[in-house]
């Protein structure tokens, strides 16, 4: 039987209020109530919810960018939460994150090639003489020409920058890629390209992906299993045996209904045959 690559067990997090007027930390509403799930090798797992639902907090806890208050993050049989900073640094390579805003997550003064090379050198994944070839390979993998290495991030559009961010994550040769709203700030037409790229990478590199977003239709397309979050809690897991159209939780249905789609527009228009056009 195939073992999960990641097992999240009862991970929770609350942010205590700081400062003079802070109340007792124990009274703070948790940003994330204890959450548990498993991620299989080569699986794309979706996490969906509105802003403030705790989906980003969950992602940050899995990547240990944030230390959870309780619970365990089991990766290859080892609890990452129990590790100290130094031990953790060695494991960070394996779980990489791509963030929502590709304008804020690239150093504007670092050429794209240097940004990718830095990752490889820090993690000692390539010798200096091989770095250039490897950079070209990575750029090719995300559909950018190798001459992109010589440009600064400012020369690229939002969609291209997100490809660069993905290439930088891949430079670390991760086992797990966490994509936190990677397409939410992109044009619809470009969203499709980035989603297709993630599907290609999963196929080619057997990468496990956690894809976070608020567009349930998009997530349902690429993730066979989707975790639905509301107010810091996992309220439902859909997919697998339960198709999303059979989702039971009213919040999941509300999420589905809220996505504007052309099918809905067509249905609305045909129900009002003479729409006043002026």
């Amino acid at each position: 039987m195939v073992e999960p690559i990641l097992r999240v067990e009862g991970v929770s997090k609350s942010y205590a209020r700081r400062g003079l007027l802070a109340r007792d930390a124990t009274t703070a509403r948790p940003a994330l109530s204890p959450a548990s799930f498993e991620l299989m090798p080569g699986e794309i797992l979706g996490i969906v919810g509105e802003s403030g639902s705790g989906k980003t907090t969950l992602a940050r806890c899995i990547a240990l960018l944030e230390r959870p208050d309780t619970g365990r993050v089991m990766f290859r049989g080892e609890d990452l939460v129990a590790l100290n900073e130094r031990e953790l640094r060695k494991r960070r390579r394996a779980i990489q994150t791509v963030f929502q805003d590709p304008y804020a997550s690239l150093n504007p003064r670092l050429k794209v090639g240097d940004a990718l090379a830095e990752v490889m050198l820090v993690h000692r994944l390539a010798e200096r003489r091989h770095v250039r070839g490897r950079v070209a390979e990575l750029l090719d993998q995300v559909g950018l020409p190798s001459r992109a290495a010589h440009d600064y991030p400012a020369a690229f559009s939002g969609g291209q920058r997100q490809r660069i961010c993905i290439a930088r994550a891949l430079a670390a040769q991760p086992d797990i890629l966490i994509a936190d709203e990677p397409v939410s700030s992109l044009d619809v037409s470009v969203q499709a390209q980035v989603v297709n790229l993630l599907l290609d990478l999963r196929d080619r590199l057997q990468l496990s992906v956690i894809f976070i977003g608020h567009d349930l239709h998009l997530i349902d397309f690429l993730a066979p299993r989707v975790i639905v979050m509301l107010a810091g809690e996992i309220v439902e897991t859909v997919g697998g045996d339960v198709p999303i159209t059979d989702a039971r939780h009213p919040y999941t249905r509300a999420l589905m209904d809220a996505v504007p789609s052309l099918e809905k527009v067509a249905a609305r228009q045909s129900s009002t045959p003479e729409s006043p056009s002026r």
Partner: protein
Amino acid sequence: MTELGLNIENLSIAFDRGRKEAISGLDLKVLPSQALGLVGESGSGKSLASRAALGLLPRKARVTGRITLDGQSVLELSPAQLRRIRGSGIAMIFQDPMSSLNPVVRVGEAIAQVIRSHESVAQGVALERAVALMARVGIRDPETRMRSFPHEFSGGMRQRIMIAMALAARPRMLLADEPTTALDVIVQDGILKLLDQLRRDEGMGLLLVSHDLAVVGSVCDRIAVMYAGQIVEEGPAMDVLMRSRMPYTVGLHASTQRSKTLKRLPSIPGAPPPLGERPASCRFAARCPLVAPQCLAGPVPLVSVGSDHMARCVRTAEVANLDRATFTVREREAAHNG
């Protein structure tokens, strides 16, 4: 007779001493109480066009053409005259409500300021109207919330405050530039419904700018599609969405498809030509699955393809052969169209 509404005629805007033309010969009309959706990708010129209607243009821009609001020429107004029509004649909301609100002014006060800059009413009266406006845009408990600062609101509530401010001077035309792009779907749904209702109740014209065909389709009665600085298709919303006659519109439509029967999401290959490198012939030709020699022969005019429906394409008859779900050319169905 003065022409009511917003009327843009043959507008061109260029930068870099005219070398880089961002908008080329744009014609656009929004009648009172009509909702027009302006759709296009980043860099298509859609935001620039909507800002031009407010007289908000970069100083280095070289502008030709005419923009009139209820018959008044916007481009010829003095700064003082412009200030007067901004707010009462035409108001605008932007994508990012946080950076458009003063963080140290309570929201009730911010709305009252807009009212008092256009009408001479007492502060108390202005604040009362601010409360009424907050209730109007769906903010609960406005008497208390008027004393809150912008950071105490969520993104969606902030956008509602922006809408309340935009409505404060009773504008005849509202421009909304990607008003929901930074918001999640549930909040977006609420804002779109609010905009739709306001325009019906107040008889206000609405120009909704978005990259998302589905967003625009759920609110607007007319849709104009912009590509590389030009209108490439315009008409009644249903005709543009369901009987597209321009391959680019078909591609945009396809990229909203989420059918699980597809292995990959349909998308338009390539990217739009950069400023200054736009061809004189069809600007979409390099990405078009229907491209033919006549597409590269010279400038392509907008042609009528139905009642009140226009497209900028020389192969409008063949566009019916494009599959709206996948943006590929269908085989053996050419007989379908007339």
